[in-house]
């Protein structure tokens, strides 16, 4: 084998392999959750509670087996959050429902009856926005 060709055959593939390996790493998530101090008294109205129960509570409660969902948002702990954290979570609920990110698509594929109806989505978003507006004004 000629030297130049040998260099090509050995080094280019080696370099390519390094780059391909680098991209092969994917993202992992891990960690612990932190508990903010309890503060305000939020009362979730019944119609909203029913929506949560049907479409969200299964994943977002303290006893849930879905660790990622638990870490991010606990419906049973929502009323105990500090005002600041509560505003953030309420806005996050609005965002997730607006973008159709919650409930997750994969979950809806298995349980289509848990999907939010357009009316439920609207009610949930309006409640979240109004409640967070109110907290911001106080």
């Amino acid at each position, binding site marked *: 084998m000629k030297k130049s060709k040998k260099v090509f055959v050995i080094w280019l593939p080696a370099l390519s392999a390094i780059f391909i390996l680098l991209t092969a790493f994917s993202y992992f998530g891990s960690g612990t959750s932190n508990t903010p101090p309890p503060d305000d008294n939020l009362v979730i109205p019944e119609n909203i509670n029913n929506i949560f129960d049907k479409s969200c509570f299964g994943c977002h409660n303290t006893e849930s087996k879905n660790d990622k969902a638990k870490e991010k948002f606990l419906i049973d702990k929502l009323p105990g959050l500090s005002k600041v954290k509560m505003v953030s979570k309420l806005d*996050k609920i609005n965002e997730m429902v607006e973008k159709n990110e919650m409930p997750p698509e994969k979950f809806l594929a298995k349980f289509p009856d848990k999907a939010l109806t357009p009316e439920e989505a609207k009610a949930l978003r309006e409640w979240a926005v109004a409640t967070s507006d109110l907290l911001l004004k106080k």
Partner: protein
Amino acid sequence: MRKWIMNALIAVAGLFVIIQFFPSGRPQNKPVTGKDIASVTEVPEEVGNLIRQACFDCHSQNTRFPWYSYVAPVSWLVAKDVNNGRKNLDFSKWGELSKKDKLKTLDEISEMVGEEEMPLKIYILMHSEANLKKEDRDLIVQWADETAEKVFEE
């Protein structure tokens, strides 16, 4: 060397060369004056240094592009992360956010850093300075929570 191995290697190398000609969609830095987080909000020097080192490459208009970020397929990955990162949070455009969006974003920062979801693992692999220690993470989380309290009271 067996002939098929050689051919396979040449094919891989060829592919590597060819993909260099595909555009990566690498974003540009477009500085905005007066809107960056440090000019709008109080950012202690230590926290400022941490987020500059660990977050700004994906979440600001001050992205540094190292040499390998020009080489496909890494260039594609970098372009995707920076475009996506800025869409979710751009420290250079902090001043453009509404009060609610600031609060929501600060809460996300507190969570993402506290739960070690940010900076992205793949980024830490290439940037040891972004490998935040526990104390560093605590500092950022504390700053984000305190800043949220302040924004709330504004």
